[in-house]
């Protein structure tokens, strides 16, 4: 049995990819495009899952793709392929050019303004290859699942534990002379187990993810947390319909902030399909709320020097003292709105909501009686009106302490009111995603149940 480490990318490979992406741009020019943007990505990795103490799946990943956008004046066409050969490059450019031939002149279409492109490329420390053999990965997954399964006798079954390690190499170039790339890694460990007590069967999970395997929570801890979360849900019941205060745990709160970001994205604003139209400079959160973007954080999951069109990412306050300072714009949406790009083509980078109000335990004390939401299911969010209605599970809280688990309930309100009615932001920030926020305490929502 070989014990091969996953694919390792070197700077040499990055140089070759930067040459390849130049070939794409040259091809676009030779087929008549007046401007072009191109990208190539290659990634590889290993995913292993274990269930009931034994390996269940071993997956080797290795994928590649190239994409090109061509402009003929203000007409645009896009094409992509998983084949990186010179023949595929020619054919992909031809497809993009054909499409551009049918597109309509759009006065706002085009590459970013040259002075907006990133010019500085500090090392963000995103590349930490994990020299993990298949056998080691299996051992780790088994250890993780074992710690969950043996945590308590009410843990009766398992969906397994998984170990993933990925490394990717991406380059982006355009005909304004931008040509850059970077190598990054992402590793994770996850576990999902079932518990049973009487007629109640429940499942929950936990995961850890990071750029550097040394920053992951231990396999044992991930398993224990999965078990704790599952056990906590056993015996859950519904609630009667009521109005009450609500606390979103950090992992649920990131979705809540995500809806806000969706509403201030250029695409939704220029289409007038947002509940945050004309809110720039207005109070949209209470005064103690600060939301800022930190794209250059070392090792963070959302870090980047430039956005998906090469525009420099910037550190900025999107909301300060509760007032909306800026939108989330690409070059295109900015032009549609008569504004400047904010370096957010492709989204935000490490969005942070500053804590204000203490630990989650302190928030629960402050709430007294109310609902602690630990899981949300379904969509149920209307970005045009802000109307919000989602399925939920969690705990009913009495006197600041968890009283009993609840499920089969919905929480509903309007996002504009919900944001204004935030009472506190916990210090228990979840750093596993691109949106970092602690528990969020909202004064009043409608909870429906049986």
């Amino acid at each position, binding site marked *: 049995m070989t014990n091969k480490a996953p694919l390792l990318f070197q700077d040499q490979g990055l140089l070759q990819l930067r040459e390849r992406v130049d070939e794409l741009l040259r091809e676009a020019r030779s087929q008549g495009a007046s401007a072009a943007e191109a990208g190539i990505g290659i990634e590889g990795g290993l995913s292993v899952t274990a269930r009931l103490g034994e390996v269940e799946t071993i997956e080797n*990943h290795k994928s590649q793709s190239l994409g090109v956008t061509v402009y003929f004046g203000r007409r645009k066409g896009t*094409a992509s392929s998983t084949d990186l050969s010179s023949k595929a490059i020619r054919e992909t450019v031809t497809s993009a050019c054909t499409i551009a031939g049918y597109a309509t002149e759009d006065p706002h279409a085009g590459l970013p303004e040259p002075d907006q492109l990133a010019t500085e490329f500090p090392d963000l420390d995103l590349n930490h290859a994990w020299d993990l053999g298949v056998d080691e990965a299996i051992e780790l997954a088994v250890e993780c699942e074992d710690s969950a399964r043996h945590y308590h006798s009410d843990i009766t079954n398992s969906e397994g534990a998984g170990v993933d390690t990925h490394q990717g190499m991406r380059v982006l170039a355009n005909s304004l002379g931008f040509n850059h790339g970077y190598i990054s890694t992402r590793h994770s460990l996850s576990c999902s187990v079932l518990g049973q007590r009487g007629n109640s069967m429940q499942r929950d999970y936990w995961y850890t993810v990071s750029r550097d395997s040394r920053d992951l929570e231990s396999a044992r801890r991930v398993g224990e947390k999965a078990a704790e979360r599952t056990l906590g849900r056993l015996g859950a019941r519904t609630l009667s319909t009521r109005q009450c205060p609500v606390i979103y745990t950090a992992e649920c709160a990131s979705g809540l902030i995500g809806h806000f970001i969706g509403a201030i994205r250029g695409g939704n604003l220029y289409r*007038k399909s947002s509940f945050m139209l004309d809110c720039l400079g207005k109070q949209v959160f209470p005064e103690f709320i600060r939301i800022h973007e930190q794209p250059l954080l070392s090792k963070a999951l959302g870090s980047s020097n430039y956005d998906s069109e090469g525009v420099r990412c910037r550190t900025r306050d999107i909301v300060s003292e509760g007032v909306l300072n800026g939108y989330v714009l690409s070059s295109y949406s900015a032009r549609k709105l008569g504004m400047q790009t904010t370096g957010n083509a492709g989204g935000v980078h490490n969005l942070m909501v500053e804590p204000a109000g203490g630990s989650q335990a302190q928030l629960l004390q402050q709430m007294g009686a109310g609902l602690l939401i630990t899981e949300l299911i379904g969509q149920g969010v209307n970005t045009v009106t802000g109307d919000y*209605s989602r*399925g939920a599970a969690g705990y009913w809280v009495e006197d600041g302490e968890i009283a009993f688990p609840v499920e089969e309930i919905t929480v509903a309100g309007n996002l504009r009111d919900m944001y204004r009615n935030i009472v506190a932001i916990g210090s228990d920030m979840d750093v596993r995603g691109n949106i970092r926020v602690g528990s969020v305490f909202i004064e009043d929502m409608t909870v429906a149940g049986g």
Partner: protein
Amino acid sequence: MISENSLALARDLIMSPTGLANQDIDRVMAELLSAPLDDADIYFQSSRCESWVLEDGIIKEGSHSIEQGAGVRGVSGEKTGFAYSDDIELNPLLDAARNVTRIARSGSRGTLAPVTSRSRAILYRPIDPLQSIPDSEKVSLLNRIDRETRKLDARIEQVIVSLVGVHDVVLVVGQDGRQAGDVRPLVRLNVSVIVEQNGKRERGSAGGGARTDYRYFTDEDRALEYGREAVRQALVNLDAVAAPAGNMVVVLGPGWPGILLHEAIGHGLEGDFNRKGTSAFSGRIGERVAGDLCTVVDDGSLPERRGSLNIDDEGVMTQNTVLIENGILKGYMQDKLNARLMGVQPTGNGRRESYAHLPMPRMTNTYMLPGPHDPEEILQSVDKGLFARNFGGGQVDITSGKFVFSASEAYLIEKGKITRPVKGATLIGNGPDVLTRVSMVGNDLEFDSGVGTCGKDGQSVPVGVGQPTLKIDGLTVGGTSV
């Protein structure tokens, strides 16, 4: 017929450009079978997709993408090894096979559930929809929809029309070397509108699609009908009042509201969850899980429907599988791995998003058979409740059985009549008992218009749903009006 022509065409479309010969495929399979595996397969795929988007009255964007590659899988007991390559060439495939055989450390050669090889008429023509009409006609279709839709009402602010076509060709090679192929066309058109009245905005959206070519949208005036439907929904919602909160009688309209079945019942009846005992339906075959008016099937063999396939992604012919018959749980949906481990036959539900993903049991077209009631009679029987006519998406926790689906168009029912429209709200219930509360089933079975996409473990596949009008005596409605 399904087998020979589709296979020859698939082989031609995938293999010819690569230069890979049958003997190369045999070598890869031999490499796989050098290890003690219970099953092995190679899945070749070549897929082309295009999309066109009209917005602000102009053709704003178009894209074209090509994805091709091969996935190599080996199964040993409950264990699976998997690797794939974007290059359909001998050496990467041999490498992939070597990686896969690592799984077989303790494997024993078991017996595979034999796959019956029948033949039947193909469900859809093996065409390339991207080539079905010239690009100029695609563009003029979008422009026409935009023009005609904008004429419908002065309150329309924004019209977005998108057209997508997929030409997906797959070739599955089983461990016995047998090959099965399928050429899968898929088209989809969507119209979404924003309307404004006195500073209040609302969105409406409608669309459809099928496994055929783009002419589907010009036939029977379908494309313009999507525009009319999107505008109608948006205008209804402009007048919507706060939705009620709490448990009440809910009447679901026919067609797309069948997403209820997909979430509440369907996922919980997929073979993998039941083999592992993680579903709220595990071990409940033969038990009552629905009212006796309820018969629910999953049928991948409906002609041209979005969720249909001639063969699944393991080469097994799709079929009509009875899930619930007159309220009694009858069976699960299976892929080869879970069927073998549970000692039953595969049901043609082994599906995967692409060659870069592992297959698992997935739904195709899931629907409830019609019942005895006139839809009007059903509404008249309700003193106070909610009538939900249209839905967005849904989700389920298969272990606790709790599911949600979100209404996008709903009305209050008062004294047997539909009265005011209410805002969209999420409905939540418990899968194993929601259908036991179905007290009336309409005689008006409808399928959705061909818009469904189902996600599971990060993999998306096209699906369909259908149902007649249903009355549920108690479901929690997540509005804001207490």
